[in-house]
């Protein structure tokens, strides 16, 4: 019984991936990567604008999330057992379970409404909030594995707490911290819900984070619900690219976790 059910889970994975590859591989061509969308009715075109848009939004989100996430992680690792740390840790856990669309609504109220326009950076802020929980938890879990003797040796040499953290703690735990950041990127790379009313969408090729941009998952959503076969084809290509990218990130995480694990 357990065997049958477990194997059907595995079968489902293979069915989905098989279908994705079957539909996606056929639509991968150079135009997909090098062109923007064509007007309705014309066939061909690609998702260059969405690839650029996704890069802008995700890179910006990562830049925002990493310093905040790592700082909160350091705080949690260094202040274990305090009441405040327990509350922070619980809040981080709960934050992980908040629906992404709600975060989109909040950012809409905070940024899009006051500024009066959709923008890539507002989408990045929404995604950065979603990236925080994995970064914070990985930083905390990595740093508590580092022996206190290492820290004490540095402090005994007269290095300040700040220097010790920067030069001893973080370099020693860089593997785990880095994999936390990648988990965060993998979590947000396929998100649409928080971008619907922040980064919005834009058929033009845009490099300015103050303007609305298209992202790959947003294009998949728009094209999937359209009646045009050619758009479906492009959406399959986009889906395959996206899934391969996230699988690549997961593989990097696995390698990091096995090779760079904190060991003393």
């Amino acid at each position, binding site marked *: 019984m357990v065997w049958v059910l*477990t194997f059907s889970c595995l079968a489902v*994975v293979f069915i989905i991936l098989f*279908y994705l590859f079957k539909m996606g591989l056929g639509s991968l061509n150079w135009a997909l990567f090098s062109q923007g969308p064509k007007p309705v009715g014309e066939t061909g075109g690609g998702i260059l604008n969405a690839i650029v848009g996704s890069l802008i939004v995700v890179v910006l989100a990562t830049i925002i999330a990493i310093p905040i996430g790592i700082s909160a992680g350091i705080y949690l690792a260094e202040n274990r057992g305090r009441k405040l740390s327990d509350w*922070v840790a619980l809040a981080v856990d709960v934050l*992980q*379970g908040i629906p992404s669309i709600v975060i989109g609504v909040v950012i809409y109220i905070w940024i899009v409404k006051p500024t009066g326009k959709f923008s890539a950076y507002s989408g990045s802020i929404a995604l950065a909030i979603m990236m925080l929980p994995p970064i914070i938890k990985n930083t905390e879990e990595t740093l508590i594995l580092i022996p206190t003797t290492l820290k004490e040796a540095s402090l005994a040499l007269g290095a300040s707490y700040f220097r010790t953290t920067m030069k001893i703690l973080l370099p020693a735990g860089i593997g785990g911290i880095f994999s936390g950041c990648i988990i965060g990127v993998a979590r947000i790379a396929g998100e649409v*819900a928080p971008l619907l009313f922040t980064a919005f969408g834009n058929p033009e090729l845009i490099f300015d984070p103050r303007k609305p941009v298209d992202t790959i998952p947003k294009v998949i959503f728009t094209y999937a619900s359209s009646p045009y076969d050619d758009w479906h084809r492009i959406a399959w290509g986009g889906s395959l690219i*996206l899934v391969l990218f996230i699988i690549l990130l997961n593989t990097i995480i696995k390698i990091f976790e096995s090779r760079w694990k904190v060991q003393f």
Partner: protein
Amino acid sequence: MKSRWRVLENKIFVKWLSIIAIVTMILLLIFFITLLVSSWPAIKANGFGILWRKTWDPVHNNYGMLPFLVGTLITSFLALLISAPFSIAAALFLGEYYPKGAIPNIFRNVIELLAAIPSVVYGFWGLYTLAPLVSKLELKMNLPAPGVGIFTASIVLSIMLIPYSVSLIRQVISMTPVSLKEAAYALGSTRAEVITKVIIPSNISGISAGFLLSLGRALGETMAITILIGNSPEMPHNIFSPSYTMASVIANEFTEAVGDVYLSTLIEVGLLLFVVTTIINLIGRIIIKKVSY
């Protein structure tokens, strides 16, 4: 001079850490206040009646979200029900049958691949493969056959929940004390008996917390469901009916909402979703934490 700067930078660093920690902690509270303030006009205009009125008619400023509430609850619970046996089985397989080794490790990675697929791709896949099958099934049952609806959305949602609940439940199951299991085996129990009479009962609160957290995720799942549920703001007649969920009504109507009350009402839907998922996650996390020690 230099040493004074070092003292200062150290002080700034320590302050920065505490500030970040406190901001992270009250972020949820800030979310709540933001949503509450922005939905206040709607809360005043709609009253509590919005929870049980059945018509959603933005044109005449007549808002009732009962169809979304029902749609959300049915879809989520159905998905949880479908995925539960699979999740428990896979969790037992990975946590109890073969906790270590190369092949189970591969299995675990394969199941985790399900989490690598974005929600919108699930929706697209479901629309292409599952919806036509469901449509055929509906024809056989003499029902209207759009193919999309609660049933299709629930099946896809149940697949999406599997990696999440498997990892939570596996964690709980693998913490069963070995002495407990060995005692049961020593009394002559079979493996099936150990599972049904020792492992599951002794971990029941942890397993329930795992499902509770999965439910929280199901309630807020947006994109796949928006593509597959059929987007019909009417009360569902059966589990094949097209319906609507709270998250997908926000996704579809938010950017098109004209008028302050309409937008504010959609934010009110978001507020309700936020409050419910926060409570579910709080309870789930607290139980999991208690079980872990």
